[in-house]
């Protein structure tokens, strides 16, 4: 092993250990906050859960009392919270109060589709946004720069549910080339992924454009051109890596948009993911499901951020020092 790489790996291992501690804290905090927030919401929990289970036509005082008895909802808050902490330590997320299935099983079922959707969205956004951004940054004030600015502003201003509907109208209803919703048909993931990706690309395009502008004005880029490299060569060897650093760093911020978007987009496209599950769990006060899904979303956030940090460290050698 090269002795020069050892400190770099040590730094990364240190950062990862720090992230692990962060993940533990996030797990504890998110779960506990969810617990208190759901308890503080107005309305009687037993009635809410009964409505979630049996449908509203069948909610009655008798059904609610049966639920209260079955789930021990009369227990003091502290006992219920301690119980949850204790089970969390044993990696047991409990049973969903609505479907009576283990929360871990439900989440395992829903996490896959969400991760697939998020990865495809992120890949599409990275393919479109930074590419256009770099091209726009090469000719600031040019036609492409102005067009991408207008598009970025429009796409970012459009709420994802509206953008999703517009895409469905174009690609499914008018052109008939992609399915409008569902999760089992050919390419049914493309429209929800595109909805998320366009919103993300709108911002990463501008970040890449500004970074490109900065690179173009830098001494090292001018030197690369002066020493006789073509624009393409200079861009590939000296430009892209420097542009990539801020774009990748910004991905960390975009994760917030992604998580928020997933919750909405999954509901619109009937995508069986974790965001959709969270919305339904909140409506029917399914506390273990809310805690479990929020926990997993929080941990995903920490994991992706750790990946972004690692990627940044690889892209920018100065960070490894």
């Amino acid at each position, binding site marked *: 092993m090269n002795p020069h790489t050892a400190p770099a790996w040590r730094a990364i291992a240190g950062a990862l250990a720090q992230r692990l501690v962060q993940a533990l804290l996030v797990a504890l905090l998110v779960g506990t906050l969810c617990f208190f927030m759901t308890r503080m919401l107005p309305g009687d929990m037993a009635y809410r859960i009964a409505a979630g289970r049996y449908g509203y036509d069948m909610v009655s005082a008798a059904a609610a009392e049966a639920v209260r008895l079955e789930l021990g909802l009369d227990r003091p808050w502290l006992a219920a919270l301690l119980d949850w902490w204790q089970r969390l330590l044993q990696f047991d997320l409990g049973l969903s109060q609505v479907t009576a299935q283990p929360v871990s099983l439900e989440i395992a079922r829903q996490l896959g589709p969400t991760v697939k959707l998020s990865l495809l969205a992120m890949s599409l956004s990275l393919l479109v946004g930074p590419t256009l951004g770099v091209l726009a940054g090469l000719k600031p004030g040019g036609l492409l720069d102005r067009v991408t600015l207008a598009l970025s502003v429009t796409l970012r201003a459009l709420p994802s549910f509206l953008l999703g509907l517009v895409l469905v109208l174009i690609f499914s209803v008018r052109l008939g080339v992609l399915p409008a919703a*569902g999760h*089992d048909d050919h390419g049914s*993931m493309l429209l929800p992924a595109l909805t998320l990706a366009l919103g993300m690309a709108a911002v990463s395009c501008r970040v890449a454009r500004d970074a490109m502008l900065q690179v173009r004005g830098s001494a090292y880029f001018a030197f690369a051109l002066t020493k006789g490299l073509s624009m393409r060569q200079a861009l590939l060897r000296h430009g892209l890596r420097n542009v990539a650093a801020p774009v990748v760093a910004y991905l960390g911020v975009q994760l917030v948009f992604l998580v928020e978007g997933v919750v909405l987009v999954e509901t619109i496209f009937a995508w069986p993911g974790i965001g959709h599950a969270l919305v339904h769990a909140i409506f029917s006060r399914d506390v273990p499901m809310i805690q479990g899904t929020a926990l997993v979303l929080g941990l995903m956030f920490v994991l992706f951020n750790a990946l972004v940090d690692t990627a940044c460290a690889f892209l920018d050698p100065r960070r490894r020092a």
Partner: protein
Amino acid sequence: MSRPSTPSRRRRTALAAAGAALLPWRSALADDRAGPHSHSFTAAAKDVLTVVGPWELTGLDPSRAGYMFARMEVVETLLDVDDRGRLQVRLASRWQVSSDGLEWRITLRGNRRYHDGSEVTPESVLACLQRAHARPGVLRMAAIRAIALDAGAIVIRLERPFAPLPYLLTHYSCQILAPSSFDAGGNVVRIVGSGPFRIVSMSLPQQFDVERFAGFGGLAIPGRIARARYISVARAETRTLLVQSGQADLAFSLDPPSIRALGRNPKAVLLSQMLPRTTFIKLNSGHPLLADVRVRRAIALCVERQGIARALLRDPDLGATQLFAPSMPLWHDPALAPLRTDPVAARALLEQAGWQRGADGIRQRGGQRLALNLTTFLDRPELPLIAAALQEEMRQIGIAVRVVIGNSSDIPAGHRSGALEMALVARNFGNLPDPVATLLQDFGPDGGDWGAMGWRNSEVPALLAQMAARAQPANAAAVWAPARARIAALLQSELPVIPVVWYRQVCAVSRRIDGASIDPFERSYRISHLVWQ
């Protein structure tokens, strides 16, 4: 000058290829196998009927999403009803009641099999009914002493007579599942029914696939639907788009804007059927401001039913002239004087009741403002819109209304705590095909979670109790006609609830299928009757 060194180019190419391979293309293009139907994305496959609705599968237990397995014709009940609500046999071959009305005997039809090949035995049916009785549900309405077997028949013994009992057995919580559906603890772990379709695959909470069960018969008829899929799609806009793009064959629970949009669509036709569901204002008649029937009548007079039906539901025929819709032929009384809209008369009634208009337009009496909360919920998207219209209509006659939008369960919870003032609800009187059991729940001696609250009336509960307790004569419809008319008239004059609009189920049907119809009791999608065009 030389070109850049080839190793770095190769590395870049390799990196790009690896990056592309990492992209989740496989899942994005899932099911993209070449097949006879792969030329089109529409519908999962050309020969799979796709049904979409807003209902999620909240579990396998019959009491939870059992109605979805019934609608897709996977599971059956002992008895069923026809479109007019008349009892029909299903897994049972006949039913009879003892002369004292205390013992019901149900004989099973022989030669019926579950989807796992096992026989539908009286023991397996008994286990399902006992299980349903042990949980909160419709069977609790009848005072059941025991459910047992006697000479191969199911015998249900009651504490006191309950004529609507056979109708309780048509409810989805009384579905009959094969013994292999349950685990050792009695929990439902798979759905093994006896209907014309059997479950092929399931991904809770959103989707399940069924195929025709050979053991039920009927497979030889050409063009019949052999495979079908249900997808839960929460938003009405998405369901509409699925129909417009040809991805869904049957779409239920469409909102008024979607209905208008689909009316012009070449890919689908719309079917509609009035259902026994009424949207009404549930009033706390025991509340100091609402105890005076004149105030309740004033509220009823200010409601612009036709306007709400036309503007919000885009269907002027849905304005309710009485509580029971024409889709309940035995209970709808065409002779009853219809509810009318007359804000002038409403103001006069409030004046008579001592409520004088204050400086801000809101009426006052003895320093107290006529201000009330109207609670409603989001499960039915039209409810908050109707609540907003009612708020304005009541303001015009001097009643300040605060609309509180929450969860459906706030209404039974508010009823129990006594905190509810007014609530806008949509009640399904066809939940059980004989409305007597539902009405007993809603207008019984102490009112009901979804019916009267704090209403002092003994005649309606007494009439309903009589109808429930007496053995049904052969000509029951005619015998009880005066009682039904009296109940309808009392509800119309006393107004424990104020009817607003009736309900029409609209279903979009793709043009590639024939034979679709809507079940007025929402028990079945009737996919076994459909044929491909």
